């Protein structure tokens, strides 16, 4: 069906004034559910679960022998998360459904309080996610500062070896959790409906659920610290996992909880993109960010269940005394490695693809050129997503896999660099002979290409078995993945924030402060991590709090740069506070002159996004093309009708 360009006259009445039941999560005043009730729910739940665990298991011999009741901790965590979800109102509708009821009416709560509630408005959820992922990022960043402080000196220690590895583990895990959701959550939820011409996401309650589960995951993973931390790094390898104390529960359950959020977010995103594209939004007109999020959603939905299963098995090993990962009892420590990396490698692309989607949106706007080889880019993303399921064993080259398997996985890994290369070349082709407007989003996009080149090329080296054997487990690998994740995804995310926050908040971020932010972040990122390649080649292993004396100079250089890199994030935080609250500057409706559909709606975006469901007429990248049609017909709503043309 299509919606004809001649708009029929509206038939339904005006705004609703019904007296329907209003959801508890939306009621005004204290008789409603919000962050406060969620916190109470989580605390009560934790205490209840812990008490139950003690009542059940405190007499078990292994609990008495170890002096640690992991069952009480696990039940505490499970009940705590359940209490959190119950308190925020996530379970209201699922429970009411048992009686066959339709959901209670959702009204848009106005004002600040909506951000502390179980909102089903995708724009509110998007902004909630912005704050959520920044919270992850900043706390993970503080842990990074602690790591670099310890590495200032190989002999004078601030932390014990044990504390150091726990800080590294927490840093790595928190950052990885954050990175899985950093684009899908904030930008995906906010922008995808606007970009595809929809008034909503397919399943608003699942969208809200994904955010509140994500926040629960944050608390669970941080609960690992008071529980004694975990010594396994972010990869959680057995047998260390099996031997670790109750902090390991925070890791295993944390990944399971975050995994639920990832699955929910990916599920909702994929279904929305497939079904809610406006008339005329054919697959060849779908914005590249949406393509990247579709590919990412496929990975989120299909790879994450394996992580979830692996986490559940780990929890069973610790609580029910199964032996999935215990060699001596018929299990296998390698099983964890296989399950973890079957998820873990697609995870790498969960983190890479959305970054390329963001810069794919930014480049055409600031070069005023169409996106080069758009279809190749979209196909490349799908190709990467498919191939990413067949490469996981390259993480096990050193773990004693059957050596005959190595060439196979070396081949698949090198194969995946082909579609990745295509995606990269789409950017290069767009930049070719372009007259670039060096606005801040564009600077971040260019930085991604610079950083990812280094991260990507070193990745091709690492896929090679002989090189891998030499540098495995050292700072070379560490630097490689910081270059791809931080240098790629995080730079893209920052570019995306500068680019889209004016739409999301109605405020421009200050350019001068933004330039300071960009240059400090770019320069000190490279000065922090490039020396780590050299440090790695000179033999410094990961996860160890000391190193050879002759490496101190390079380490100190890296640490000081890291502190300045940390400072660049403070500049960013200051810019947010300054531009949004201290000296807010109203953003024009379309500050970058973009053809993107998301920029064609009113500013601020009304809760229903589009007065009329748009009819999409062309793809959003036809810049500088004489006579290019407007991107969409937005009907008779008096909104911005035609996209600006060059």
């Amino acid at each position, binding site marked *: 069906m299509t919606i004809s360009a001649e708009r029929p*006259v509206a038939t339904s009445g005006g705004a609703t004034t019904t007296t329907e039941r209003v959801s508890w999560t939306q009621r005004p005043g204290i008789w409603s559910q919000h962050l406060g009730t969620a916190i109470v729910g989580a605390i009560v739940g934790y205490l209840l679960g812990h008490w139950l665990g003690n009542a059940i298991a405190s007499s078990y011999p292994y609990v008495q022998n170890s002096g640690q009741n992991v069952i009480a901790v696990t039940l505490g965590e499970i009940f705590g998360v359940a209490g959190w979800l119950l308190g925020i109102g996530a379970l209201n509708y699922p429970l009411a459904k048992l009686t066959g*009821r339709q959901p209670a009416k959702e009204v848009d709560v106005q004002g600040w309080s909506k951000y502390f509630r179980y909102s089903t408005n995708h724009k509110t959820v998007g902004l909630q996610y912005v704050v959520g992922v920044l919270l992850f990022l900043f706390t993970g960043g503080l842990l990074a500062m602690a790591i670099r402080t310890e590495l200032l000196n190989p002999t004078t220690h601030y932390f014990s070896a044990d504390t150091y590895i726990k800080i590294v583990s927490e840093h790595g895990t928190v950052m990885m959790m954050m990175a899985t959701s950093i684009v899908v959550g904030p930008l995906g939820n906010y922008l995808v409906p606007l970009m595809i011409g929809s008034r909503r996401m397919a399943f608003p309650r699942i969208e809200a659920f994904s955010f509140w589960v994500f926040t629960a995951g944050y608390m669970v993973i941080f609960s690992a610290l008071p529980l004694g931390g975990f010594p396994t790094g972010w990869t959680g390898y057995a047998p260390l996992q099996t031997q670790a104390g109750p902090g390991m529960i925070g890791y295993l359950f944390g990944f399971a909880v975050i995994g639920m959020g990832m699955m929910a977010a990916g599920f909702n995103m994929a279904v929305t993109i497939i079904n809610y594209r406006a008339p005329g939004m054919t697959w060849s007109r779908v914005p590249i960010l949406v393509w990247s999020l579709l590919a990412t959603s496929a990975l989120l939905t299909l790879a994450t269940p394996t992580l979830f299963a692996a986490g559940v098995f780990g929890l069973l090993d610790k609580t029910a005394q199964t032996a999935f990962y215990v060699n001596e009892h018929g299990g296998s420590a390698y099983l964890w490695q296989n399950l973890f990396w079957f998820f873990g490698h697609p995870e790498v692309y969960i983190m890479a693809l959305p970054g390329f989607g963001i810069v794919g949106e930014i480049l055409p706007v600031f070069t005023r050129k169409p996106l080069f080889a758009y279809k190749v880019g979209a196909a490349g993303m799908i190709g990467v997503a498919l191939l990413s399921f067949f490469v996981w064993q390259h993480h096990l080259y050193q773990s004693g896999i059957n050596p005959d398997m190595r060439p196979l996985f070396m081949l698949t890994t090198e194969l995946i660099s082909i579609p990745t290369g295509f995606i990269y070349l789409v950017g290069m082709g767009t930049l070719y002979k372009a007259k670039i407007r060096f606005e801040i989003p564009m600077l971040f996009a260019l930085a991604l290409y610079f950083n990812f080149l280094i991260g990507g090329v070193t990745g091709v080296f690492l896929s090679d078995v002989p090189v891998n054997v030499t540098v495995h487990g050292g700072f070379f690998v560490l630097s490689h993945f910081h270059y791809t994740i931080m240098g790629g995804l995080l730079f893209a995310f920052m570019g995306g924030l500068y680019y889209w926050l004016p739409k999301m908040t109605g405020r421009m971020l200050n350019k001068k402060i933004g330039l300071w932010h960009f240059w400090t972040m770019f320069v000190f990122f490279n000065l922090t991590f490039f020396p780590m390649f050299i440090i790695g080649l000179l033999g410094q292993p990961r996860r160890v709090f000391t190193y050879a004396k002759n490496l101190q100079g390079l380490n100190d250089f890296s640490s000081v740069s890291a502190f300045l890199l940390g400072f660049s994030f403070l500049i960013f935080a200051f810019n947010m506070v300054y531009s949004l609250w201290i000296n807010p500057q109203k953003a024009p409706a379309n500050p970058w002159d973009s053809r993107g559909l998301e920029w064609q709606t009113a500013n601020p975006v009304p809760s229903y996004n589009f007065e009329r469901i748009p009819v999409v007429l062309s793809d959003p990248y036809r810049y500088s093309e004489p006579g290019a049609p407007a991107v969409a017909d937005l009907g008779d709503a008096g909104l911005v009708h035609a996209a600006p043309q060059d």
Partner: protein
Amino acid sequence: MAKVEQGYISTPEEEEFELRAHIGSVWSGGRLFIGMYTFLLASLAYTYFYLRSSNSGNLWRPNHMTAPMSFGWGIVLATALAAVLAVYGQWRFRRGGVADWQVAGWTALALLLGALMLQIWELTKLPFYPGASGYASSFIGWGVFNIATLIVSAYWVETTLARGMRLRTEIGGDRPTLSTHPSAQSFRANVASMTYFMGFVGVGAAFFFALFYLI
């Protein structure tokens, strides 16, 4: 699906568009959910075969230890029968047999709850301890996954049945099988997705029964 919310007005064409999108979402969401669940269960199957083939310390399955057969048969038969009833129910539903569908649905629900009870009970009656072998561990894993699967299935069946009962009054006494009312159309899409999932659950139960009890 009348959209007269939050101060915006939908044209009939837009309402139709949103309804189609919604039904498509229920349809594709149902299939995607099965895809996700397949990966979850495949992780368990992988675990089974991985531990079986690595046979660490010859402890994959000493003395061919097996979970109690009677429980196994009870659980798989109840689950498979529930799946068959769901499929049969939908076949009747499509032909207008709403009452048949309901009877089949409530029976399927009872069977699922029965299977759930048996599964929990079985875990308390195992002739081996959880860490006794690779098989024992995988079996506990299956027990936990099966409990989750049975709860999810029972929930989906129950909520669909309950919705079906309320729906009739909502759509003015029409038959949900025939009505063009948006709620009825959405309901039919949900019934179809639920039935697919039940079919999947039945096949999964049979597959894991074969793995853990027969071979």
